[in-house]
């Protein structure tokens, strides 16, 4: 009853093509954004910010990147970890080589570097499709990690092989480094995520998104209609890698503080792929839902035994986590292959009719 669209007529195509055509949605999203920007920095504990909200935003950004490539453009990629690593190491080199540069600009530049690398590894996608392309992206993943391990220039010749985020300020507020507080870092990752999500939404609802989905659904028919596959796919790789690169830079600068290449290994690629699958391929919202899910499940598993008055050894917990992940993936694929986003959509449909059954 509350969620009815009755009385909301759209008189222009512009109104029809708005991101949130229903008034109730616009209101809710605006309120939600305001709440997201204000409440956690003021109210949330350090633990919640550091262990949940900040990684959630960063993973969501990476998942968004992967979703654009795999969900919208249909190009399966197992190289997400590698592209995130490119962003992280590029950001490190740029930040340390140009200390006066605004850190947000550093992130953007790191994203561009990552986009370039993504473009390069996307070139095979013209000849190679499906699983075969996944192998090409694996080549990227393993090669890039090896490169960052071997070439000491990337870590500024540090003997430990780790990169550490140098302290940087924005408008006088400490954003990176040991003195940067969690609320500040949270606001930055939130802002970046919201901005880039908006950009992603604009891309997918227009010409670019349609050409990606056309290639994904029927690449031959798409070609016959006039869509050129190589530029379309390369654009997908580039933009996707940009997002993953920025996420990777944030990963080190705004979350971990310092990292080695192991932080970006194949496990990360799979983790982000899970977020996209569970959240929903081909859905912007799904990327966020999937990331939230993957971040929350371990938290839940860590805390549930306490709540149930059981105490489990750490190793066992990790194993159960793996099993639960695996089982959930299979479960989701059986029940709703289109992920949480589709479940959300179905709930909204039901809500439109509520309290009537149909």
């Amino acid at each position, binding site marked *: 009853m509350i969620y009815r669209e009755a009385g909301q007529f759209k008189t222009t195509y512009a109104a029809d093509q708005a991101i949130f055509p229903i008034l109730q949605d616009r209101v809710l999203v605006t309120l939600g954004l305001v709440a997201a920007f204000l409440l956690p920095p003021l109210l949330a504990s350090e633990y919640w910010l550091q262990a949940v909200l900040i990684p959630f935003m960063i993973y969501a950004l990476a998942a968004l990147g992967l979703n654009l490539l795999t969900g919208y453009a249909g190009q399966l990629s197992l190289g997400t970890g590698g592209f995130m690593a490119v962003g992280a190491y590029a950001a490190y080199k740029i930040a340390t080589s140009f200390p006066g540069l605004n850190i947000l600009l550093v992130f953007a530049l790191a994203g561009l570097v990552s986009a370039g690398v993504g473009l390069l590894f996307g070139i095979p996608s013209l000849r190679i499709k499906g699983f075969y392309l996944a192998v090409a992206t694996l080549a990227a993943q393993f090669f890039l990690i090896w490169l960052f391990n071997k070439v000491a220039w990337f870590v500024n010749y540090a003997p430990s092989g780790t990169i550490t985020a140098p302290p940087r300020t924005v408008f006088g507020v400490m954003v990176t480094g040991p003195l940067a507080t969690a609320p500040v870092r949270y606001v930055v990752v939130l802002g970046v995520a919201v901005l880039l999500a908006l950009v992603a939404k604009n891309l997918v609802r227009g010409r670019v998104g349609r050409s990606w989905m056309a290639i994904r659904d029927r690449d031959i028919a798409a070609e016959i209609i006039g869509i050129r596959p190589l530029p379309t796919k390369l654009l997908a790789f580039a933009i996707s890698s940009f997002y993953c690169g920025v996420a990777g830079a944030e990963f080190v600068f705004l979350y971990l503080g310092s990292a080695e290449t192991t932080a970006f290994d194949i496990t990360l690629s799979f983790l982000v792929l899970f977020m996209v699958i569970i959240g929903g391929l081909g859905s912007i919202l799904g990327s966020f839902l999937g990331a939230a899910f993957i971040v929350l499940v371990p938290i839940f598993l860590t805390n549930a035994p306490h709540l149930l008055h059981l105490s489990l050894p750490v190793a066992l917990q990790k194993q159960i986590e793996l099993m639960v992940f695996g089982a959930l993936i299979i479960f989701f*694929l059986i029940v709703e292959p289109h992920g949480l986003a589709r479940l959300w959509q179905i709930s909204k449909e039901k809500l439109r009719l509520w309290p009537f059954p149909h």
Partner: protein
Amino acid sequence: MIDLLAALVAPFREIAGAPTFFVEVLLGGIFAGLLYSLVALGFVLIFKASGVFNFAQGVMVLFAALTLVGLMERGAPVMLALVLTMAVMVALAFAIEKLVLRPLVNQEYIILFMATIGLNFFLEGFGEMVWGANVKRLDVGIPDRSFMLKGVQINQLELTAAITAAVLVTVLAVFFQRTRIGRALRAVADDHEAALSIGIPLKTIWVVVWSVSGLVALVAGVMWGAKSGVQFSLSLIALKALPVLILGGFTSVPGAIAGGLIIGVGEKVAEVYWGPLVGGAIENWFAYVLALGFLLIRPQGLFGEKIIERV
């Protein structure tokens, strides 16, 4: 520039200068290659019969090896342990068919592939939970000793393993090409619904195939485990099998063998002779880059069927 060329050429001279060592490197490569072939074979079997790319194959290798070692640690003699492990793998095949494959029978293959990724993680956690996470020694009664043959050092364990693998692979190749069941399996791979509609018992076939695949995984697990201990890096072999499949084609049994050997030998030789030039660990990515190179020239792999697209 000349230095660079000289550096690239030097390994060839090294090879020529110490031929027996080169043969040993080759043998090492062949052993690893056979292992890859076995794992790839498991993939090929399942892919041929059900069109599913079983990402969990590597973990099945690990799981088989873990079960075997676990049983032997609890006092079972080798033969009994082998039989019991086989039974466990068959039971696993049944469970996978019932819980994962059947509910997803009409979905696109990419969905099935992702389900096998989920399966991979599940089995990894499960295996670790049941059998423990530390490295285990696997002793199947074959001594890990070397003997000399014409100046080349050959390891008895590796030789036995290689022969077993070769025999297994030949048997399977013949099975698929010549027998009626083999043909039925190929029909199933093409189109599940069509196969069902002409009376091929899909369920049974899937259980058979996944069991055979489990057996192959067991042999691979034993081979690898006996050589380097049973540990979790075993599941990463699955990823290595991908380049093998690229080279050999996803549906060709001889292709899996050829691909495995090429990758195994190529990797070893590259690592030993060219690795030091760039600081080593080329093995991590060499196979993938090699596969990538092949794909660019021949998108369907060495032995794969050319994909004809119709509109």
